């Protein structure tokens, strides 16, 4: 196992925003982490190389084992050897990740491990991320690039150090759909060529379904369902996952109402007792408020945090309006 996160808890200013997460990523595997704004998914991604600003709080407990070493126990020197080298990042907004006063060439060069023969190596990287056109054009700045090209350059910088794990945090959210497709294709191609492991963080089920092997669904700081992508989409078990899948807009709906999840995500300062999804859940029963359920294995690698088994019959028997109306 390349990366093992065990019972990770992260605290921001006295509030637990990641409340105990386990996640494993194998060599060459792509794990998707899905959740809505504020569920803690980005925090998990950043915590892998301890990028959470100290002043905001920090990791309160847990282990992050990367190649069997606990990242949380590394000193500054040890951390530097991993951060941006063995584990690299690509973030959402390429225009704010790139430095506007340095050329793209210099920025990719900076990410290289070896400092000899850099021109050839930069050229090779540009080629592998589909930027052949700018090989040799050393004086191009980020503002001369389109969003898609900027993101290609970011991916180039991320692979320049030949990492074993890349954390992709909403890498295509700022891009148009046709460009999004190209960037996803590029990521898949590099993953296969370099046997990369990927943590793909996104809010969009459609994208993650296309790219991930396994998917984790996050809600209020915990993973509420985990499993192979086919299972998650077509055989979802947790009511939140069911709601998410039903909320994906598509031609099939044709003006019918969406089976939407009512209400809104709870605040971390005001979490409900028991199951955190209880107030929005249409399959709830009284027992749900007693205590927060554990993530339990179901079968075939799928695990869910719901105490009920939500069969197809139960799904179809529960009316859409069973959900609480939005406040």
């Amino acid at each position, binding site marked *: 196992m390349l990366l093992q996160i065990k019972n990770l808890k992260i605290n921001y200013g006295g509030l637990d925003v990641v409340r105990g997460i386990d996640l494993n990523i194998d060599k060459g595997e792509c794990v998707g982490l899905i959740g*809505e704004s504020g569920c803690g998914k980005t925090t998990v991604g950043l915590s892998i190389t301890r990028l959470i600003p100290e002043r905001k709080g920090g990791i309160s407990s847990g282990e992050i084992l990367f190649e069997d070493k606990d990242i949380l126990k590394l000193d500054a020197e040890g951390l530097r050897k991993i951060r941006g080298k063995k584990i690299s990042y690509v973030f959402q907004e390429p225009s704010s990740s790139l430095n506007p006063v340095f050329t793209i060439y210099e920025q990719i060069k900076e990410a290289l491990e070896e400092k000899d023969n850099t021109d050839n190596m930069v050229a090779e990287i540009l080629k592998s991320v589909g930027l052949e056109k700018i090989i040799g054009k050393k004086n191009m700045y980020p503002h001369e690039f389109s969003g898609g090209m900027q993101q290609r350059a970011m991916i180039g910088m991320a692979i320049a150090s030949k990492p074993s794990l890349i954390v992709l945090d909403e890498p295509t959210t700022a891009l148009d*759909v046709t460009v999004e497709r190209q960037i996803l294709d590029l990521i898949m191609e590099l993953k296969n060529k370099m046997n990369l492991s990927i943590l793909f963080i996104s809010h969009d089920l459609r994208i993650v379904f296309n790219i991930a092997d396994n998917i984790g669904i996050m809600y209020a700081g915990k993973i509420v369902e985990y499993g192979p992508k086919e299972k998650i989409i077509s055989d979802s078990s947790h009511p939140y996952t069911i709601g998410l899948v039903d909320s*994906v807009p598509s031609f099939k709906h044709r*003006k019918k109402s969406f089976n939407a999840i009512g209400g*809104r995500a709870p605040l971390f300062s005001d979490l409900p007792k028991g199951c955190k999804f209880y107030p929005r859940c249409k399959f709830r029963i009284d027992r749900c408020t007693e205590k927060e359920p554990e993530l339990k294995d179901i079968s075939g690698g799928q695990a869910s945090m719901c105490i009920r088994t939500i069969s197809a019959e139960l799904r179809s028997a529960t009316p859409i309006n069973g959900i609480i109306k*939005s406040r």
Partner: protein
Amino acid sequence: MELLKVDNLSKIFKKHRVKAVDDVSFSIFKGEVLGLVGESGCGKSTLAKLILRLIDADKGNIFYKEKDLLKFSHGDMRKARKDLQIIFQDPYASLDPMIRIGEVIEEVYDIHKNVPERDRKNKTVELLETVGLGETYLKRLPSELSGGERQRVGIARALATDPEFIICDEPVSSLDISIQAQILNLLIELQKKKNLTYLFISHDLGVIGSICDRVMVMQSGRFVEFGSCEDVFRNPGHEYTKTLFKSVLLS
């Protein structure tokens, strides 16, 4: 009945020499939801602004109930906007952070003078309830609301003049998926109940497919495909539409 008819409409941004909207014609019928899909910079929002005369067209005609909007004086246009409303994309940018929700909506009555003084509060509360909020929201500031709630306020504001025609300019693209489904439900429900007509702008074919009757596909200021949703989704004709469909995942 043809509610809105656009003929050979063009807008050129001279400084950048861009034909943002290039000789575009279409009509919208009463009670219809017409989709407009395309990628960033294709001219979708420019077209929306042209129809509301928030910017001036260079060429063409826009007929609303057979009257030429482009010939209207500013005063007449202001009156016409009672019927023609818009819901913007970003619920964070389209609400003034210093103005309470009740006042946001009452400002509309100040402009259009469509509600007598004594009915104002009742009408505002009624509007908030229509969009799934309630009286408790009257005194709140936008900062106290979530993105979905703000977009509901944006919808209530658009409904405050009892319009017939609403332009929805990417109303759900900055929202989380579960909230997006709630807002789409609300828009569908309102459209059916009040027999509203929408021009629904989105870059997401899934959203367009779930709500629209007909769809126009726009690329570089022109329509490359136009037809009923059924036809365009089952059997896209233009290469660009096909590329768009290939890019949409799992729908």
